[in-house]
């Protein structure tokens, strides 16, 4: 059996909404950890004086900075919604095949809607 080939797995298995949400949940989780660390550093730089604040402000107003902000908002939105979905599942609900599809779609589309809402809210506040 040692030399027998391994049958193909992830290469051939079709993606479902639930598996897509699951892997995205993990990826956004990792992104969030990195971003939170970044935000901590950002606040640390504030302590070092006003010029640092100006540099960070300049960066966040650039295209890359805005992309980073939007990406972060999306990542947090996705993680939050997906986590709520997992929480409901931990109570034993929502395992029906159609329900998982619907809740999965809610997570995917909801994350983008939430991103836009948070971004607009942030813009009107600051």
């Amino acid at each position, binding site marked *: 059996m040692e030399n027998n080939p391994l049958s193909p797995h992830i290469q051939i298995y*079709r993606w*479902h909404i639930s598996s897509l949400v699951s892997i995205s949940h993990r990826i956004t989780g990792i992104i969030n950890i990195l971003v939170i660390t970044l935000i901590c550093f950002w606040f640390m730089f504030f302590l070092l004086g006003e010029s640092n604040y100006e540099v960070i402000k300049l960066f966040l107003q650039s295209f890359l900075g805005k992309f980073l902000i939007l990406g972060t908002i999306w990542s947090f939105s996705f993680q939050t919604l997906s986590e709520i979905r997992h929480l409901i599942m931990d109570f034993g609900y929502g395992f029906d095949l159609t329900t998982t599809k619907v809740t999965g779609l809610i997570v995917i589309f909801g994350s983008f809607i939430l991103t836009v809402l948070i971004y607009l809210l942030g813009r009107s506040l600051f």
Partner: protein
Amino acid sequence: MVQINLPQNSKINKGKYFKDKTGSKNLRKINVYRWDPSTGENPRIDTYEVDMDNCPSKVLDILNKIKNEIDPTIAYRRSCAHGVCGSCAMNMGGKNGLACTKPHAEIKGDIDIYPLPHLKVKKDLIGDLSGLYKQYQSIEPWLKNNSKSETTEIHQSQEDRAKLDGAYECIMCACCSTSCPSYWWNGDKYLGPAVLLQAYRWIMDSRDEDKKERLQKVADELKLYRCHTILNCTSACPKGLNPAKAIAEIKKMLATT
């Protein structure tokens, strides 16, 4: 561990092309995973043109047609052809299922047929399930009751019996376990949906007196908690069962008792 790429000896080559000889106008291309243990070559994909005008409705019918009329060397398991024995479990159109109950009309375009994912291949579409059977044995799937009497029945109320619905119907075809990415990466330790559904079936049985020990036995970071509710299992199950829910119920029982 997570290994995305296939090992060197498992890389798939292009195989033979079997052109249609019947002259039929209604043809479908069937791509079948082939591996012959006697040659020492890598696996390959053979393509068959099959006359669909003279083919019954299920994927297994296509395979039988290929074996009977085109290429007798192809190997696959099958027995009952009614979705009861679980022998013909394979990956069709990117999803696990039973070839005997899967209508080929549900698959669009060319039909790709592979063995169940992430198993050692014995030949062509036959995967080695001995690891799964060993895990099945490890949960001790039999009734444990201290009753000494051999003549009196152990009673079960209708409500208690109803708790086994959705678990006892499992035919152990392994469609669910081999669809699970967690089982792909940790199949040596994680029990997988099929075995955990059976563990649940015995935990829930009111006649069984070993509930606590059974629960303690599966309460393990790797055996149970590698389930991340990816839900490939539930969507793959050809019997319409819900292993993901059963696993969630086990987790719930462990958290609340």
